[in-house]
């Protein structure tokens, strides 16, 4: 039973990773690509790690626990890294794709988190 669940999770995880990679190739700019990279690759990788946890839970609590712990870390670090990349790209002048409809961040002059706004 747990073999079947694990195999399904592994397959679905790999499919999401594939969708994420396709997104990296097809989407037009850094920001859109980061969307694909954070969402699909995060869930895909978590599913693969979850599959590892499910498949090994019967034999080795050590591996299963490490797999579960890695899911927690990926869920915390992956969006943080995406945010840092998007912010860094914007700060170094990477333009949005020409089909983009708005850039409120540039319109407001890239206010930094450290700077107190005076309203």
């Amino acid at each position: 039973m747990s073999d079947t669940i694990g195999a399904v999770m592994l397959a679905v995880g790999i499919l999401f990773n594939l969708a994420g990679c396709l997104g990296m190739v097809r989407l037009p700019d850094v920001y859109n690509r980061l969307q694909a990279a954070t969402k699909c690759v995060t869930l895909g990788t978590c599913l693969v790690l979850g599959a590892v946890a499910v498949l090994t839970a019967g034999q080795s609590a050590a591996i299963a626990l490490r797999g579960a712990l890695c899911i927690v870390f990926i869920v915390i670090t992956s969006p943080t890294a995406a945010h840092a990349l998007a912010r860094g790209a914007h700060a170094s002048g990477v333009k949005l794709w020409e089909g983009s409809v708005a850039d409120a961040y540039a319109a407001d002059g890239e206010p930094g988190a450290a700077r107190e706004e005076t309203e």
Partner: protein
Amino acid sequence: MMRRLALFLLCFAVWIVLVWPPRDETGALRLADLSAGALAALLAAAVMREFTFEKTRGLLDPRRYLWLAAYGVVLLFYIVKANFDVAYRVLHPAMPIRPGIVKVRTSLRSASAITALANSITLTPGTLTVEATADGWLYVHWIHVTTTDPEEAARHIVSRFEWFISRIFA
């Protein structure tokens, strides 16, 4: 001091999970692993002044953990939805995207609450936080912009998480 102690305990707990099991075949504690972990956690607690908990009061309040568990389920739902959404846009031959950066306002103020909110937004359908300011403005890259009005956008992007996060990081 309490803040550092809380950070030390958290680091040590993570370490124990990493080196699991804490006892070897004979049932004796694996002292080498555990003392290395204690040392590493001590070092982290000593150095990471900036990244400790903001306050330790209420850290053991069970209601917060119940909210966290409920939030985990809600977030998982949105993450799965986000994945189908992005996968659809990527695989569709015409690639139906309408990207842009919009700004939204949050009523949350504590740094960890805003961090949690920004990360949740990044993980959920079509949105990616580019910047969060200290006074509660979030700049969000949206893969399919339906409105550039901050209030309207906040209803789409922020409100579904704010309620939970304000309870978890009360």
